[in-house]
């Protein structure tokens, strides 16, 4: 196994040198979407015209000798809960179908400014609520490694698009694992930045205190390049922090020798799937081999993460999603009476999982329950954060599996919301603590399904996670063993 090619870095370089035109790169991406997305359903909207125009602008800029951005000509897909000016943004929900935002999300704006070519909007669980993309109002996304399996969620479309080579990179959003878990299921690098590192402006909120925008790429270095572009303070997001953005690409070149890796032993041992266990063992060997030292750490309060998460996230969602009422935008089911109009619009516009979470959250915030539920959950968040603080006394990164199992089959968990929620059991604690966490591919099962390992870092220490991930990738990366093979395309 070896590191995959860094196609983002290479493409930007080739376009800058004039070895390839941005239009060629863009057309290749559009052609692959055309050929494969019928089977995958990764895209909700392909912006053919907008993408070609952006590509032409890059080529024109080069022809005029203007400086090109770090993502010049790189094709990128955007999760459909990030606002794109004039381009439909639906959150995979009937209630917002056809809505065209009048503005770009901050991260989208930064990508455009860096010369990226945005090819389209990707499918997700409705309003990012789900772990399999089966909750999309517009049909599920298929896993490019095995079309009978889910790609994970909620950013399933963005993960699948990169895994299948439909775009060279993509953006997702992560609330409780929505970037990392599909990253693991689809065998791509997935980054959930520190809360406050990337602006949430233009990210349609699910749970405001947890949501973060993050990239999917084939290689760790590519993710570093995207992070250097999208990270940074944005005065339009009051929770975005003014911290310097380090040179993440340089961090990928730093050897892992001397790195202290804290292994969450209880989480590794909780994994029942033998192949995931084997992949974890291989990862620990690889890190040792790279000169890292391993220590065991514990997160005593992590066991409460699922309960805490489903109180905090649903409470915030119940309020965030109140604005979808048919008055100003999106779906309106007309009725003579205002209350009936709002009720019918929401009844017809939202899918069952979204309704379930709105109801849970409304209940959690209700008079008489607030202290016992929401307030207590917030206190447990603090305890989880302290667990990490203690762990970081003895290590530089915390390691755990990203998911307890590889990608599961369609319908396997849709009947049981709790079983579905447990797919996020390892990704929730870093989210609740606001910490940066990556999922890096670390092997394939015998059946050819990717497995991911999760690395969690200190606040704003994404650089160390790039360093550690690069070490794992160098030894266990999926190389050119690409998912596209499973789509019958050997080109």
């Amino acid at each position, binding site marked *: 196994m070896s590191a995959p090619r860094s196609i983002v870095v290479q493409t930007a370089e080739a376009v800058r040198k004039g070895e390839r035109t941005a239009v060629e790169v863009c057309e290749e991406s559009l052609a692959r979407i055309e050929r494969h997305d019928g089977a995958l359903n990764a895209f909700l909207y392909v912006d053919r015209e907008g993408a070609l125009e952006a590509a032409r602008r890059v080529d024109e800029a080069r022809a005029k000798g203007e400086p090109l951005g770090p993502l010049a000509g790189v094709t990128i897909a955007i999760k459909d809960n*990030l*606002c794109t000016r004039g381009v439909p*943004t639906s*959150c995979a929900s009937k209630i*917002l179908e056809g*809505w065209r*935002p*009048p*503005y770009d*999300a901050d991260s989208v704006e930064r990508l455009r400014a860096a010369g990226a070519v945005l090819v389209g909007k990707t499918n997700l669980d409705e309003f990012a609520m789900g772990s399999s993309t089966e909750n999309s109002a517009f049909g599920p996304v298929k896993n490019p490694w095995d079309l009978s399996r889910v790609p994970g969620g909620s950013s399933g479309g963005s993960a699948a698009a990169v895994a299948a080579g439909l775009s060279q990179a993509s953006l997702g959003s992560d609330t409780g694992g929505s970037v990392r878990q599909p990253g693991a299921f689809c065998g791509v690098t997935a980054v959930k930045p520190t809360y406050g590192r990337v602006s*949430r*402006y*233009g*990210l*349609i*909120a699910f*749970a*405001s*205190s947890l949501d973060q925008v993050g990239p999917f790429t084939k290689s760790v270095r590519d993710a570093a390049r995207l992070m250097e572009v999208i990270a940074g303070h944005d*005065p*339009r*997001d*009051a*929770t975005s922090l003014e911290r310097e953005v380090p040179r993440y690409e340089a961090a990928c070149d730093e050897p892992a020798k001397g790195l202290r890796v804290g292994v969450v032993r209880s989480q590794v041992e909780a994994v029942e799937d033998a192949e995931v266990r084997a992949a974890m063992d291989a990862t620990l060997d690889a890190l040792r081999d790279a000169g890292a030292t391993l220590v065991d750490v514990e997160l005593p309060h992590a066991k409460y993460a699922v309960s805490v998460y489903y109180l905090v996230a649903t*409470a*915030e969602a*119940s*309020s965030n999603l*109140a*604005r*979808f*009422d048919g*008055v*100003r*935008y999106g779906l309106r089911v007309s009725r*003579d009476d*205002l*209350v009936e109009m*709002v009720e019918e619009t929401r009844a017809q516009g939202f899918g069952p999982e979204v309704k379930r979470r709105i109801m849970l959250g*409304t209940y959690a*915030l*209700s*008079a008489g329950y*607030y202290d016992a539920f*929401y307030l207590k959950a917030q206190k447990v968040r603090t305890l989880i954060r302290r667990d990490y603080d203690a762990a970081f006394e003895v290590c530089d990164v915390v390691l755990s599996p990203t998911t307890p199992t590889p990608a599961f089959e369609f319908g396997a968990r849709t009947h049981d919301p709790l079983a579905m929620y447990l797919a996020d059991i390892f990704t929730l604690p870093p989210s609740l603590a606001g910490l940066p966490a990556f999922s890096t591919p670390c092997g394939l099962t015998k059946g050819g399904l990717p497995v991911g390992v999760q690395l969690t870092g200190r606040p704003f220490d994404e650089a160390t996670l790039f360093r550690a991930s690069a070490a794992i990738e160098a030894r266990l990366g999926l190389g050119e063993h690409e998912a596209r093979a499973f789509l019958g395309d050997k080109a």
Partner: protein
Amino acid sequence: MTTYEAVIGLEVHAQLLTRTKLFCGCSAEYGAEPNTHVCPVCLGLPGALPVPNEKAIELAIRAGLALGCKVRTTSRFARKNYFYPDLSKNYQTSQYDEPIDEHGELVIEVDGVEKRIGITRAHLEEDAAKNVHGEGGGLHTVVDYNRAGTPLLEIVSEPDLRSAAEAEAYLKKLRDILMFIGVNDGNLEEGSFRCDANVSIRPVGQEEFGTRTELKNINSFKFVRKAIEYEIARQEAVVSSGGKIVQETRTWNEAQQKTVTMRSKEEAHDYRYFPCPDLPPIRVSEERIESIRASLPELPDAKRARYVEQLGLTPYDAGVLTGHPEIARFFEATLAALGDEKLGKKVANFIQSEVLRFVETRGLEATFPVKAEALAGLLALVEKGSINGKIAKQVFAEMVETGASAESIVESKGLAAVTDTAALEAEIQKVLDANPAQVEQYRGGKQAVFGFFVGQVMKATKGQADPKAVQEILRRLLG
């Protein structure tokens, strides 16, 4: 028969005088074309996020300090959740258990008796949009979001008020203070200063409160008084006849001269308050609080007291001149230009008798017929004896009319007092020569004739002679 006492608490919504809204850069100005002062943030578009307006926070602190509140170094925005189309997000961003200002008080005076009224809290919140029903005769409701997100300070009093008169005094006092510190324009008609009242009654001597009703949307001082008086009487009538007060929201109906039910408790909301996750806590350092405190101007009470004690004004006059911050400023600027504090009373009198009828106020703004410096120029002429008080009124009217300075008017119209003693003495001598009989009477001891001579001299000099000089010379020549 049981005697009852009223228990009243007031909630005031005062719009903070910021240029922009509380969480976005849209103009907070009143009266623009509908839906022209809007953006993704105040329209509640998906993905838009709020960013607090620092100026609004500063004004809230300013108000808190002027009302004797403790300003919290850490306070928090919270979401108040309820569905209504005038709320673009279907929640209002407000403050709940950690308001920016707490534990203040305000001293009112009714019938010469001072009373302290506690202020429970003052918190920041965003205003709602305006629903317009039946626009163009249709059945539809349309929404104007220009007002959505404008910054309000909600100031909540303790239930310390016992009569409609006290409530009115409290509101006037509160409005005065907010206007003098430049936090609010006190404009009830445009809704930038709004009041809700919680009213209940209880038998005198009883500790616990009775069931209260809430009076909403009272938009003039006159209505406040009438609505509360009516409500107290209504509650007494209900209780005296063995009935029970229903907890509900009522509103003042001016046409019917009574309060009427708006909605009952059954429809009361569970607002599901929780800290707004989009907005970090508001942190204010003690140093910043102290620097804002140091920047507070003289408050109306202190000003009135100073006018009485230092400038010798009557309490009534001091009250008139502090009736609006701009009037007080005009008075003080005139006095400063004259450079003599002892003239305070004269300046006050002239402003009240001549200037105020030309003054128009609108919110915090006021228009004056002449500049303070110009008025000072006129009054300086009176002080020098160049003109007398009566002429000064004529000159002032001319100044208002033409905008010319007092000096140029006096000069061009030849209104300067005859202060040339020799000329005046000659004039007086003429008067004495023309009235030998009266001179004889005076010298014979009939002092009352003196006034006759003064009158004759003033007539002869067309009123321009300085009366003091006339008297002096007369005494000398007759003596």
